[in-house]
């Protein structure tokens, strides 16, 4: 027996966040005098009646009456007891304009998804290829987003190059867009040829949400064009919506997720990020994906073997307790290892391509260790279980290289050993130069001799001058297909960088592993001092690193998602100091207030900054 849930009477009240909003349920002409329309809205059956005098009335089936109005060519319904004012659109009645209702189209997805798609320009080149965009011009230029005092969301200054912007277009044109969302389910778009705002087509995309994951879209336009028939205009716009529909119906979550960590925006998504933020602010629950982002599952490995591979260097073989393969790694990758005592340390993987059943890392005992390497050497034993991250790679091989020059210093051998093994296995042109204090300090000699015979050179116990001469010799006269990869003590890294630069190596062919994450957004700015109010810790944020990056390096956990200043996941409270806001998430007013900031991109104007962390 199937239960007829679709027609079950809903006794839950309408979500208060949208109860007093107006929803379009058709065009005014749908209800002639004396006629009754039946519509579904927010999981309720509605009867809309136009009496002999032309006045509208509405009621939910078997329940109280609700508000009904004609406005801008459409019939609007409000289910709540205190309807908000209907939006104002003075242009609608301006002389020379006409109104074309282009139809009601069912879309099997949540209405909020439809609105967000309408606010999005980034999909034009892919979904509306050769009409609203081309794959030759995909960049979305920066635009302004604002929630105004009437609680309407505006995106202004949006520009896009369009091959065919409307039924009336005669070729490629730069088009100005202004988006206006009058309530969460009702967006408008003012679309004009660049610099002709007064002649804007006003496109209505009023969503009639029927179920949480289903809706009907009322699609209409107010326009100045008098040369095209309503039919021609409708065909053009329906082509566009027809291209959107299969995409919209293919969302894994048909309801819009408001947990900022479920989906990852880019900076081009400032409009949709502001829209989602607004929906969070009004506390909307209906039609919203209820799932919260799950914490990533931890990976636990077993220490299968621990052995000394050089003076003060221990190698660890880590295996899966389930006896199967471990998540794949690429040469240059490292693991975050959670150590006894609460330390988190990054160790590069030394693996070759053949062994997918284990990870190999090597740890040098640092005399000045704050506890990381000492814990690995003294406390970790075969049979122990360790929590590790998935392999991460900030030091990947460049696939276009025809020759690879690997330069290792001391314990910096670890990622380069993995690179050398992978390159040698596919018979690549590779040579490894291994600088260390003495022969006794050279790790993995057995492996190097066995697997890389003739492809590696040991430089043991060189003076600084001899090291410089050797590095100069290595970097002399490279061809455009050669890439160098260096990992080792800072002086060696600096020597290679300076020598390579002087010898004419471009930066993109010199790769360095600094054991820090590279910020994806242009960093750059003044250095400043950062204090964490809760722990009292103080750190320096150098000119070329972000706050988030610096916090990670001192093991202060901070949730991030986009790392482009768009999603708001890392939002934190400013206790003292003046932030330099570089994000697109906070409003102008919030930025001026300096109470909050996004540490993934924003910095400090003052010499010191104190955050509530």
């Amino acid at each position, binding site marked *: 027996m199937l239960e007829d849930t679709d027609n079950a009477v809903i006794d839950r009240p309408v979500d208060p966040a949208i109860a007093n909003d107006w929803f379009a349920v058709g065009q005014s002409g749908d209800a002639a005098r004396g006629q009754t329309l039946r519509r579904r809205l927010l999981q309720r059956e509605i009867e809309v009646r136009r009496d002999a005098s032309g006045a509208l009335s509405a009621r939910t089936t078997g329940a109280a009456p609700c508000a009904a109005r004609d406005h801008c060519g459409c019939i609007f319904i409000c289910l709540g007891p205190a309807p908000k004012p209907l939006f104002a659109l003075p242009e609608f009645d301006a002389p020379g304009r006409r109104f074309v209702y282009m139809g009601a189209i069912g879309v099997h997805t949540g209405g909020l998804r439809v609105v967000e798609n309408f606010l999005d320009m980034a999909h034009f080149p892919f979904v509306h290829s050769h009409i609203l965009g081309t794959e030759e011009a995909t960049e979305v230029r920066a635009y302004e987003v604002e929630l105004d005092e009437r609680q309407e969301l505006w995106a202004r200054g949006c520009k896009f190059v369009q091959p065919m912007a409307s039924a009336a277009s005669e070729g490629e044109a730069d088009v100005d867009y202004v988006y206006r969302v009058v309530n969460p389910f009702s967006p408008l778009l003012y679309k004009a040829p660049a610099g002709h705002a007064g002649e804007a087509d006003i496109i209505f995309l009023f969503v009639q949400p029927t179920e949480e994951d289903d809706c009907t879209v009322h699609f209409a336009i107010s326009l100045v064009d008098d040369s095209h028939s309503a039919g021609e205009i409708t065909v053009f716009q329906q082509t566009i919506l027809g291209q959107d529909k299969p995409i919209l119906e293919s969302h894994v979550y048909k309801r819009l997720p408001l947990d900022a960590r479920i989906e990852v925006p880019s900076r*081009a998504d400032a409009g949709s990020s502001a829209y989602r933020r607004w929906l969070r602010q009004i506390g909307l629950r209906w039609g919203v994906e209820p799932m919260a982002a799950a914490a990533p599952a931890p990976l636990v490995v077993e220490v299968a073997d621990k052995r000394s591979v050089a003076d003060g260097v221990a190698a660890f073989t880590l295996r899966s307790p389930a006896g*199967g393969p471990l998540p794949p790694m690429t040469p240059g990758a490292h693991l975050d290892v959670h150590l006894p005592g609460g330390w988190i340390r990054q160790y590069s993987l030394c693996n070759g391509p053949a062994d997918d059943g284990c990870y190999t890392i090597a740890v040098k005992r640092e005399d000045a260790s704050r506890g990381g390497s000492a814990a690995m050497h003294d406390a970790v034993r075969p049979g122990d279980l360790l929590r590790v991250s998935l392999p991460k790679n900030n030091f990947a091989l460049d696939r276009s290289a025809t020759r690879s020059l690997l330069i290792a210093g001391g314990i910096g051998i670890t990622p380069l050993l993995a690179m050398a093994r992978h390159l040698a296995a596919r018979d690549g042109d590779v040579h490894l130069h291994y600088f260390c204090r003495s022969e006794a300090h050279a790790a993995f000699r057995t492996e190097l001799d066995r697997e890389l015979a003739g492809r590696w050179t040991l430089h043991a116990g060189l003076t600084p001058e001899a090291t410089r001469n050797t590095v100069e010799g290595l970097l002399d006269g490279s061809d455009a297909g050669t890439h160098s990869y260096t990992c080792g003590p800072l002086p060696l890294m600096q020597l290679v960088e300076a020598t390579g630069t002087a010898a004419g190596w471009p930066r993109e062919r010199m790769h360095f592993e600094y054991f820090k994450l590279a910020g994806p957004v242009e960093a750059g700015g003044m250095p400043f001092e950062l204090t964490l109010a809760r722990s009292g810790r103080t750190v320096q944020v150098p000119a070329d690193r972000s706050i988030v990056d610096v916090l990670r390096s001192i093991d202060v956990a901070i949730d991030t998602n986009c790392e482009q200043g768009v999603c708001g996941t890392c939002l934190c409270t400013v206790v003292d100091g003046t932030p330099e806001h570089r994000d697109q998430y906070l409003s102008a007013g919030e930025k001026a207030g300096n109470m909050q900031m996004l540490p993934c991109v924003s910095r400090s104007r003052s010499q010191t900054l104190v955050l509530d962390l």
Partner: protein
Amino acid sequence: MHTQEQARGAFAADGWFPVELSQHVPEGQVVQSMLHGQELALWRPLAGSVQAWENRCPHRSVRLTLGFVDGEQLVCRYHGWRYGSGGRCTGVPSTPALAPPPAACVRAYMCREADGVVWASLALAPRGYPPRLPALAACRSFTLDIAADALADAIEAAGFESGGHPAVRREPGTDPEAATLLLQPMDAHTTCAHLFVATPLPAARRLAAARRMKALFAEELSHA
């Protein structure tokens, strides 16, 4: 009772399961599959091994099977975001000057291919390895409205034996038509049984094996 518990153990989510026949994932294409209720996008780059990813673009949660393979990358249909090895985002066309957001990473499941079968596991570190199936060839796949452990019980009751791997059952005997079934738990109520028989085998005998399995499933499922 004991068998039931074993069956549940055999189909626990940390194991390896068949998710598609290799021939159905040609080079440069992306296809949909299902394992333990998780929708998968299986795709094969122009150079490299087959991939089993969560069928969801991390940007807007659109299914990646709507997208296309470009060389060694999978491209989302919606905004053209590109994903390469390990599921990492390699390009965001709307912001070409910025590095892709580091969190924009498709969940890549572990995947292996052997003897004409694509195997995957939903676990980070799966139990053991997929089996080898020497001298066998795919014959027919049956999608059945029954849980994998119940189906395993039913075919064991009909005389099938363990095939040396939790997801494999074999018909005893040396007849080349003897069936080997690879069981793919699609979700809690649906199983795909991939029938393999000895190779080479004439078409008529392959057809006979497929008919025999179809009859067996009809018989067993009518009791389930």
